[in-house]
C-alpha cells in the first residue's frame, strides 16, 4: 500500500518533536558527556583533549573503586532480598487473610516515601546513641550492640536494609497481581494429586510467574543504578568513604569539586557498564523477533 505524500508529511511532522528530543537530549547530551571525559575540564567545560587520562585517574581513585564495590553489593543484595521478601509477603497475603486491603496498604506505604525521608528515618533508627541500640540498652540489655551504621565495614549493609524496606512492598504488589492471575483449577488439580502447598509454589506457581519476577527485577535494577539520595541522606557516603556510590561520585565531582573531566569519565563508565549488561538481552530479544 503506498502512502500519499500528504499523509507521509503529516506522519513525519508528528514524529519530529520526539525525534528532536531524542537526538538533542539523549544522543546529544550523552555524546557531550563522553567528549568531556576526554578533556581536562575542571570547573568550566573546555576542549583540551587529554585522551584517557581521566579514566586512568578514575581507576586509581580509592573512592571510585569503593563506589563500584558498593553498588555491586547493594545491587545483588537488594534485588535478591526484595524479590524474596516481596514474594513471601505476597504468598502470605494470598492465603485469604482478613483485612487484606489494610495489610496491603501498610506494606506498600514505604514505597510512597522518598528516599530522603527513608534515609533519615533509618539513620535515626540505626544511630547507636539515639536508635535501636540505645533503646535496647535502656531496657536493661547492657551488652546490646547494633552499630552497623557507624562502622565502615558494615555501613553499606545499612543502605541495603533501608532499600529493601522501601522496595519490598512494591515487589509484593506485583507478585500479588501475578498470584491472582493463576487459575484456581491448577490449585484444585494439585490438591487432588495430594501435593503439599510449598511444593506447589516451588514447582508450579513460581515458574508460571516469570513475567512478574522479570518486571520486579527490572524495576529494582533501575533503582540500583540510580542509587544516590539514599546514600546522601543516610550516611553521606560515610563513615569515611565506606558507603559511597557511583552516582554520588559523579554529582560531587561535577559540582562541589569542580572536576567535570573526572565526573564525566565516571558517568561514561556507568553508561558503558549498563549498556554491557543490557545489550545481550536486547540482542536476544531482537533475534527472537526475527525467528518469529
Amino acid at each position: 500500500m503506498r502512502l500519499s505524500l500528504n499523509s507521509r508529511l503529516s506522519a513525519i511532522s508528528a514524529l519530529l518533536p520526539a525525534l528532536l528530543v531524542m537526538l538533542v537530549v539523549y544522543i546529544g547530551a550523552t555524546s557531550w558527556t563522553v567528549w568531556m571525559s576526554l578533556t581536562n575540564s575542571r570547573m568550566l567545560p573546555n576542549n583540551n583533549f587529554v585522551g584517557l587520562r581521566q579514566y586512568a585517574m578514575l581507576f586509581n581513585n580509592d573512592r571510585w573503586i569503593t563506589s563500584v564495590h558498593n553498588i555491586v553489593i547493594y545491587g545483588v543484595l537488594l534485588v535478591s532480598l526484595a524479590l524474596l521478601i516481596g514474594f513471601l509477603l505476597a504468598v502470605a497475603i494470598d492465603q485469604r487473610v482478613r483485612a487484606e486491603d489494610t495489610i496491603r496498604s501498610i506494606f506498600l506505604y514505604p514505597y510512597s516515601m522518598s528516599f530522603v525521608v527513608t534515609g533519615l528515618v533509618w539513620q535515626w533508627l540505626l544511630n547507636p546513641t539515639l536508635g535501636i541500640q540505645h533503646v535496647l540498652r535502656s531496657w536493661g540489655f547492657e551488652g546490646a550492640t547494633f552499630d552497623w551504621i557507624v562502622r565502615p565495614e558494615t555501613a553499606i549493609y545499612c543502605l541495603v536494609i533501608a532499600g529493601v524496606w522501601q522496595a519490598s512492598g512494591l515487589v509484593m504488589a506485583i507478585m500479588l497481581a501475578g498470584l491472582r492471575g493463576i487459575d484456581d483449577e491448577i490449585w484444585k488439580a494439585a490438591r487432588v494429586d495430594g501435593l503439599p502447598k510449598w511444593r506447589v509454589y516451588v514447582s508450579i506457581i513460581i515458574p508460571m510467574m516469570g513475567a512478574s519476577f522479570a518486571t520486579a527485577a527490572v524495576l529494582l535494577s533501575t533503582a540500583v543504578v540510580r542509587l544516590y539520595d539514599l546514600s546522601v541522606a543516610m550516611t553521606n557516603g560515610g563513615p569515611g568513604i565506606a558507603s559511597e556510590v557511583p552516582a554520588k561520585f559523579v554529582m560531587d565531582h561535577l559540582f562541589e569539586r569542580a572536576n567535570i573531566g573526572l565526573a564525566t569519565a565516571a558517568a561514561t563508565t556507568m553508561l558503558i557498564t549498563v549498556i554491557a549488561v543490557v545489550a545481550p538481552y536486547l540482542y536476544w530479544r531482537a533475534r527472537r523477533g526475527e525467528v518469529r
Partner: protein
Amino acid sequence: MKRALFASVAIVATAWASIPVSAQEMKAEVIHWWTSGGEAAAVKVFADQFTKAGGTWVDSAVAGAANARNAAITRTVAGNPPTAMQLNTGKQFDELVEGDLLADVNGIATEGNWIGVMPAAIIAAATRKGKMYAVPINIHGQNWLWYNKAVLASVGADEPKTWNDALATLDKLKAEGKVIPLAFSGQKNWEQNLFNSVMIGVGGAQMWTGILGKRDVSLAQSAEFKAVAVTYKKLKDYVDAGAPGRNWNDATNMVIQGKAGMQIMGDWAKGEFVAAGKVPEKDYGCTVLSNGSGGYVMGGDVFVFPKAKDPATTKAQMTLAKLMLTPETQIQFALKKGSIPVRSDVDTSALDACAQKGMRYVADKAQQMPSGDMLAPPALIGALQDAISQYWNTSMSADEFSAKVAAVLKSAE
C-alpha cells in the same frame, strides 16, 4: 548527569524569561546562599544600604553553596549573568577570570585603599593577573576551639594554648568519664577541618603552606607530617560512638549543654552559643591552638561581578562594591553573620569578646593564614578530603596516610 543538565537548562530558560532587558535604573540581582536566619539578616544589611543608595536589590537566594555557585556560574557562561554572585574566598573564580567573564573592581579598590586595610592573604585571594576581581566582605576563622568553661573547671583545666595542652585536658575529661571529651560531627568536611586545625596547630605555618600551597610531595612524607597525622588520629579516642554522620551544630550543642567538653569548629559555631543565650568568656571560651608560628586560618566570602553589557548594570556593580566595604556596613554585617570585618580600621567595640580575639589574631601578620580554599583548587581539596576521611575512619597507619597524601599532591600537578 542528565538531570543536572536539565536543571541548568531550566535555570537558564527561566532566567531568560524573567528578567526584563536593559533597565535604566540601578538594579542588582544578587545570587547568594545565605538562607538561614542570621545569614539572611546579614545579607539584608547589604540590601538596605543599596536601596539607600538609590538602587533596587533583587534577591536570588539559592539554598546550598554548591547549588548557588552552580546556578550563578551556569548563567554567567550562558551569557545571562546575575549582577553579582557570592563565592568563597579562594580559587573558585579562577576559570571565570581566565574566560574573561568577570569585571575587575580595581578602580574601586585603589580609590578605597583596600590594600592598606585588609590582610595580605585576603588581597592575594581576590587578585588575579595584578587586578582585583573580587570584593572580600568578611573573614571567618576556621580553626577555633570552643569549650565549656564549667566542664573544664570541673577537672581543674585551664584554657588550652597548644595541642599538647588540649590532649592533656581531653585525657583528664576522659579519665573522669562524666562527659564526652571532644564533641565531633563525623562528616567529611568536618573531618577535614579538624585535620587542618591539627596541621596548622602542630605543624605550623611552614607545614600549612608547604602542603596546601606548594604541594610539596616530600614534605607529605616527612616525619613532621607524620607527627601531625598521629596527633589527629589520637583524637579519635575522645569522640563518642554516635559521631559519624552528626551535624556540626548538634556537636556544638553538646558543648553548650555540658554533655561534651570542647569542639573544633569555625566561628559560625558562635551563632549557636548566642542563640542559647550563652555569654563568651563566662559560659564558654574560645581560642586558637597554635605552636607559635601562625595559626589563624582565614576563610570567608567574596562577591564577584560578571561583565555586563549595559552601563546601568556596571554602575550598580561598582556601587555595590563600594558600599559593601564601608566601615559601617562591615560592622553591621559582621554582627549579624558571626564573622569579623575584613577591614582592620573599623571600630570593634561593638563586637563580642570572641570576635575581638579574632580581630587581634588577624591584626598580627604572623598569625594570618590563608584557608585551604585560597591555596588549592576545589578538586585538590576534595581529593585530600577523601584521603583524610579514609584515614580517620579506618585502621590505616600514619605511614600509609602520608603516602596517600603524597600521591594526591603528585596527581594535582
